[in-house]
């Protein structure tokens, strides 16, 4: 059996007194799209951020292609990875944020090529060529010279996807990538994500786009109050009879166009 892209083992996380993740076990298979859904405060974003070590787990471990991320367990003791160890493991993971988080002082091309130049030490010309190829892939080659403030939200998010892809990650994490966008712009971002999934990229997406989860996801995970209640193929998750908690959650989508799932 091949090692999973990400394996989450007995992961718990607490903020002070509050347990935000309770003993999560999950394997993300390579080449598949896994969608994390659940109500606000269910811990889905926290879990995703743990997979990039933007949040530390309180206990348990996360392996990226079999390599520990953030902490190394040895003889029952946990030690933090050195910054260079962490960067090496993390380099397999690309992250797309809800707020895009583009660097405002760089053009679209600058955003996509910055890490190639600074981190990969690529000459400027080569880095910009590769960046341009990524921008073309997300359909924004004609916006390369624009600053983020001159782009629509959907375009900014596509630049952010290109920026993550430029570093050749094997896994892409999406943290509510369309939540800051209006419905019209949501479509263009989802299309880029769909194309990426078709190419066989391993993807984990926290999303409120139930339609996307149902049509593109290979697996849908439902979290509630820090617990992974269940995960299965979308057909099984969304097929009746549903888990009562999921039923209640989906009800809130009725007014928002997901009624076709009912």
């Amino acid at each position, binding site marked *: 059996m091949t090692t999973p892209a990400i394996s989450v083992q007995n992961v718990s996380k607490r903020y002070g007194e509050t347990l935000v993740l309770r003993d999560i076990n999950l394997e993300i298979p390579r080449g598949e799209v896994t969608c994390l859904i659940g109500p606000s405060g269910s811990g889905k974003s926290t879990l995703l951020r743990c997979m*990039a070590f*933007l949040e530390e787990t309180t206990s348990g471990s996360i392996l990226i292609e079999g390599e520990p991320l953030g902490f190394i367990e040895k003889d029952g003791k946990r030690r933090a990875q050195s*910054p260079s160890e962490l*960067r090496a493991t*993390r*380099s397999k*993971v*690309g*992250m797309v*944020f809800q*707020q895009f*988080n*583009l*660097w*405002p*002082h*760089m*053009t679209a091309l600058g955003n996509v090529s*910055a*890490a190639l130049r*600074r*981190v*990969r030490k690529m000459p400027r010309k080569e880095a910009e060529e590769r960046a341009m190829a990524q921008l073309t892939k997300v359909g924004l080659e004609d916006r390369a010279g624009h*600053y*983020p*403030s001159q782009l629509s939200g959907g375009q900014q998010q596509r630049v*952010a996807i290109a*920026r*993550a892809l430029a*570093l050749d990650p094997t896994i892409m994490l999406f943290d509510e990538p369309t939540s800051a966008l209006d419905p019209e712009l949501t479509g263009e971002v989802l299309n880029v994500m769909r194309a990426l999934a078709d190419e066989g990229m391993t993807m984990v997406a926290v999303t409120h786009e139930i339609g996307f989860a149902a049509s593109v996801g290979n697996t849908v995970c439902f979290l509630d109050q820090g617990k992974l209640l269940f995960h299965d193929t979308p057909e099984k998750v969304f097929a009746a009879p549903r888990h009562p908690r999921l039923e209640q959650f989906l009800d809130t989508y009725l007014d928002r166009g997901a009624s076709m799932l009912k």
Partner: protein
Amino acid sequence: MTIFVSSISILLGLGFAILLSAMRMSGNLVLINFARVFISFFRGVPLLVQLLLIFNLLPALGLSLSSLATALIGLSLCTAAYQAENLRGGFEGVPPGLIESAEMAGFSPTQTFLHIRTPIALRMTFPALVNEAILILKASSLVSVVGLIELTKMAQNLAASTYMPLPIFASAGLIYLAINLVVAAIGRRAEVALPGLPAK
């Protein structure tokens, strides 16, 4: 001389202010406290006293520096302290998400500081920087105490030899005003031309 001393001091001070900000964010207690004491001292002691201190302290330590060098050191250290305080607001205003995305792109903390935090902080505090430039231009009238002949000193000398203080000091004032109007105008231009401030 006034323009020369002020502009060099502003630039040196800016570099030093960035260094002070880096120290303050380094997490190293020795560096943090050094920056803190430095800023308190240079903001808390009048520039005139600072200049006189440097002018008298350095020779006592066996260093003989020209009036120009003494003036540059005094002015740039003083403005560094103020600029570091201005920059702090900028650094604190950089959204944490931008630092996370730099982290995910593989930037080291130093690279993040140089390529992400500093340019954004500088843009956000640019109006304060222009303001500081104007203050330093005016404060440069104090460097005559260390023997440097600048605009104000020259006006004093002229007034003493011609017995016409009023028109001469009025002209000096007008020259300061003119220079500062130009600085302010350049500042406004640059503010508009600087790309990529976070959306207002």
